[in-house]
């Protein structure tokens, strides 16, 4: 790739990809791969000086509070705001009609407004927003609002949503129904596959709804700027999409809106969208011409939700006596709640990863994502792929028992070997699952211990796959998915500008590590400026486990370009050709002669002027012979094998997850400490979903809207976690790296389910594995999984 821009723009490779000339796969590293080095923003976080959105205070800042719906489904007949407006300190009262433009995470499913208009669709839906001089006054004012509702029948279950006699939740559109999306795909010859099977088994599974519980609640601070422009600090994973949505809904040009992502108190998928906080703070700030903060309280975070879809699944699997899977027939129906969120994507993810990480050539699936009058579901770590992985990995263990085969050997015989293309045309460039499996088995002593532990104690295995970002962005265009800009000043300091959103996963350290590696400097010389739409090139955001793969490659691209410029300038003084120069230990050297990094920068700046570069990454085009898989194709896939050890108290039914060995193929280890932390977080979140977490509703009212009631694992509930890092050197990853932030979670719940079976001999197909479910199963009267409804559409 040329170091200087040409009139033709960046070069394009035949497959449509854009990025660095070399991914440096397999090259030795000197900065990357170091353990226990902390991270670039670590000191700010341990000293309390990191600035989260709620920590921002501006002069004359007003505070906004929301009034929410007490009904799951009701017409809004009238809203009386007069008493609020008369209260001292109240500055403005906002209702749905003030900001009526529809928005949504996915362009084809824009079904939300900032505040409810005409009717409410879930308990907790925002209806009125009040700005006041203090938070206390704003909160008190919400209690003076009188809303008259006409309750409607509430659609609460997937059965309700399928029932053509029930009300339609979204009345707009040509053929209104309560189906957000139905996907049906068929590959190979499933009927022939079942005909060839020696053993066919069918079962229904129910995966519960759960939510992210980031410790930082969603918050936004909006500040009006001169000339009608707007600055918005927001707690988000996806500043770019918030930028587009806020501009669209407010009817502003994107150039007049600046989005800044401060430090974010994590997301796990829960902060992927534009929230009511963003839209109301922005509208009120512009109306009042003063800054406005809108920060959610903890209970409200449970209503904002966008978490795991409760999903019922039917798995029918055919198998030969040698363990080979001959066919999978799969159905899933997800209770999506009141708005689409990313639900269109969820419907695809429920089906497209069914065969991986195995070679299965006959598969058929129908998935449906339904609207109901519950808080909207959306993406949570392992989005949509996690529920079917629980069902499939549980099912595989059951069938291993039916045919009398070791579950590990069954998986071993048909795991995919890269490069490979699945029957639904997902291209897998690298796969280290074989090593993951062997390492997890070895570390846990699976072969010697499974089936031989005392009653109540057991081991279970599961494997999984995940993506490293999507080939297709949410918006269809030819633009890069990630951009990085470097500025190098004569002190030797390198500033990295990136539209990425570090929400705790460590992407800032990843960017600094990669740039430092390529320039041969310490990451401490790097500053990362990220998530600011006025300063940074676009990155699509922290979702789909895309950041290391895509932004990492953009960082290589930018670093290699400026490295070439510096090499060209410095080479004559070292008496060497530019390609021979080595950048290491803050020194540029060749053949025994060297200059310091700082001196090299000064030489280069004197030669060519101000030093800077840009880098981009756009993934290759998807395989196009099969046109119906817009969602699922990724430039690379990560793989996981996990073994869980449980201790089940047969008196109380309490399941304790004692240990989890989780081996994950992340392509290349860029930072072992941070990578282990991601695996440990995935195991933790999986354990929570396995034994504790479930969102329960009564007539549409959430039963657990607090951290105390919605039980998340404490240190006591969390197992000893052994994170095992496996490298497979993906040919298209930065230095060969792949994702590690989501994939490990997919294997955890089925590994625990399989371990419970090893411990007490019962099968639990309906997490969380509560004492009641365990005891009932032990007593031979298990709590049944509800029947699978027919997914054949019924006319209205």
């Amino acid at each position, binding site marked *: 790739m040329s170091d200087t821009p040409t009139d033709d723009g960046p070069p394009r490779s035949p497959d449509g990809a854009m990025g660095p000339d070399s991914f440096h796969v397999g090259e030795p590293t000197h900065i990357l791969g170091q353990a*226990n*080095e*902390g*991270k670039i*923003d*670590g*000191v*700010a*976080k*341990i*000293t*309390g*000086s*990191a*600035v*989260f959105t*709620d*920590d921002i*205070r501006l002069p004359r800042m007003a505070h906004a509070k929301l009034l929410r719906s007490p009904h799951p489904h009701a017409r809004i007949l009238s809203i009386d705001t007069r008493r609020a407006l008369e209260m001292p300190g109240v500055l403005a009262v906002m209702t749905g009609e003030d900001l009526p433009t529809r928005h949504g995470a996915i362009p084809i499913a824009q079904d939300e407004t900032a505040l409810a208009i005409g009717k409410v669709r879930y308990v907790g839906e925002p209806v009125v927003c009040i700005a006041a001089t203090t938070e206390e006054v704003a909160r008190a004012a919400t209690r003076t609002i009188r809303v008259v509702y006409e309750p409607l029948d509430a659609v609460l279950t997937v059965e309700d949503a399928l029932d053509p006699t029930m009300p339609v939740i979204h009345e707009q559109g040509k053929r209104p129904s309560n189906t957000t999306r139905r996907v049906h795909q068929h590959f190979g010859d499933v009927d022939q596959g079942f005909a060839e099977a020696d053993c066919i088994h069918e079962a229904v599974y129910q995966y519960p709804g759960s939510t*992210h*519980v*980031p*410790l*930082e*609640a969603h918050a936004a601070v909006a500040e009006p700027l001169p000339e009608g422009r707007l600055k918005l600090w927001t707690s988000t994973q996806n500043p770019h999409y918030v930028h587009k949505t806020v501009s669209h809904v407010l009817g502003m040009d994107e150039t007049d809106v600046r989005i800044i992502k401060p*430090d*974010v*108190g*994590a997301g*796990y998928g829960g902060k992927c969208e534009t929230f009511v906080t963003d839209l109301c703070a922005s509208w009120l700030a512009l109306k009042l011409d003063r800054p406005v903060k809108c*920060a959610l*309280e*903890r209970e409200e975070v449970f209503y904002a939700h966008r978490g795991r879809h409760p999903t019922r699944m039917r798995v029918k699997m055919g198998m030969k006596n040698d363990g080979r899977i001959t066919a999978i027939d799969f159905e899933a129906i997800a209770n999506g709640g009141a708005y689409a969120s990313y639900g269109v994507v969820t419907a695809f993810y429920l089906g497209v990863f069914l065969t991986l990480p195995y070679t299965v050539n006959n598969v058929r699936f129908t998935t449906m994502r339904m609207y109901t009058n519950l808080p909207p579901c959306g993406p949570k770590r392992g989005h949509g792929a996690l529920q079917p992985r629980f069902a499939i990995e549980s099912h595989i263990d059951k069938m291993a028992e039916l045919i009398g085969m070791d579950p590990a050997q069954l998986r071993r015989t048909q795991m995919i070997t890269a490069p490979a293309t699945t029957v639904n045309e997902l291209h897998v460039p690298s796969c280290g699952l074989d090593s993951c499996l062997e390492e997890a088995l070895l570390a846990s002593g699976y072969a010697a211990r499974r089936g031989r532990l005392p009653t109540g104690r057991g081991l279970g295995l599961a494997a999984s796959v995940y993506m490293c970002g999507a080939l297709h962005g949410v918006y269809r265009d030819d633009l890069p998915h990630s951009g990085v800009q470097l500025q190098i000043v004569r002190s030797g300091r390198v500033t990295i500008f990136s539209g990425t959103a570090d*929400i*705790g*996963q*460590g992407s800032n350290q990843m960017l600094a590590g990669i740039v430092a590696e390529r320039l041969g400097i310490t990451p401490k010389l790097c500053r990362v400026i990220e998530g600011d739409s006025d300063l940074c090139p676009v990155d699509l955001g922290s979702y789909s486990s895309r950041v290391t793969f895509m932004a990492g490659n953009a960082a290589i691209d930018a670093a290699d370009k400026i490295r070439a410029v510096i090499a060209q300038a410095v080479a004559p003084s070292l008496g060497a050709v530019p390609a021979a120069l080595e950048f290491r230990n803050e020194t540029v050297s060749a053949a025994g002669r060297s200059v310091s990094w700082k001196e090299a920068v000064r030489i280069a700046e004197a030669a060519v002027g101000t030093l800077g570069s840009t880098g981009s990454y756009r993934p290759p085009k998807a395989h196009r012979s099969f046109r119906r898989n817009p969602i699922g194709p990724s430039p690379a896939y990560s793989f996981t094998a996990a073994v869980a050890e449980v201790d089940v108290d047969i008196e109380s039914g309490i399941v304790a997850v004692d240990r989890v060995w989780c081996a994950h193929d992340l392509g290349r280890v860029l930072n072992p*400490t*941070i990578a*282990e*932390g991601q695996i*440990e*977080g995935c*195991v*933790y*979140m999986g*354990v929570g979903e396995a034994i504790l977490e479930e969102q329960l509703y009564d007539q549409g009212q959430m039963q657990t809207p*607090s*951290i*105390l009631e919605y039980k*998340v694992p*404490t*240190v*006591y509930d*969390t197992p000893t*976690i052994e*994170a095992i890092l496996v490298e497979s050197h993906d040919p298209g990853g930065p230095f060969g790296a792949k994702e590690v932030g989501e994939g490990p979670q997919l294997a955890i719940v089925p590994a625990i389910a399989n371990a419970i079976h090893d411990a007490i001999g019962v099968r639990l197909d309906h997490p969380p594995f509560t004492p009641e479910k365990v005891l009932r199963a032990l007593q031979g009267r298990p709590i049944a999984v509800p029947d699978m409804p027919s997914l054949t559409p019924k006319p209205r």
Partner: protein
Amino acid sequence: MPCIELTINGERIAETVPDHHSLLDFLREDLGLTGSKHGCDMGDCGACTVMVDDRPQLSCITLAALCDGSDVQTVEGVGRHDALHPVQAALHRHVGAQCGYCTPGIVMRLAALLKVDPSPTDDAIFSALGANICRCTGYTKILAAAREIVDTWSNHSDGGFA
């Protein structure tokens, strides 16, 4: 409104506060000490943990007015970037802070533990951390940091807090 006098991070402070204001709001809104976090405002999560008279306290459910005469220490006072508290240094090295939102509470919880017991048992560490929720780390790196401090200090006769 009562006027309270107290010491915060070694500084003598006299302020009037409304009866119903929490210590957390007092720290954040009146003093600009935003290191202590709102996680739940119900005492469920531990993100607001500070030390009051050397004991860990949930500042979101502590009335500021009741802290008259107290010695309060927050994450801003326990260490600085150039003089990190051993807990902070260990958490940094082990990347025990991912998003960092629970971290000030974890720092104060462990600092308070080590103040009363420079070589706590694993049970004591669990008992302390049991009051703090972290959704990022699975507590693994936090435990590693805590255990490293105990291991290091058990080899030093001064018990760490010299």
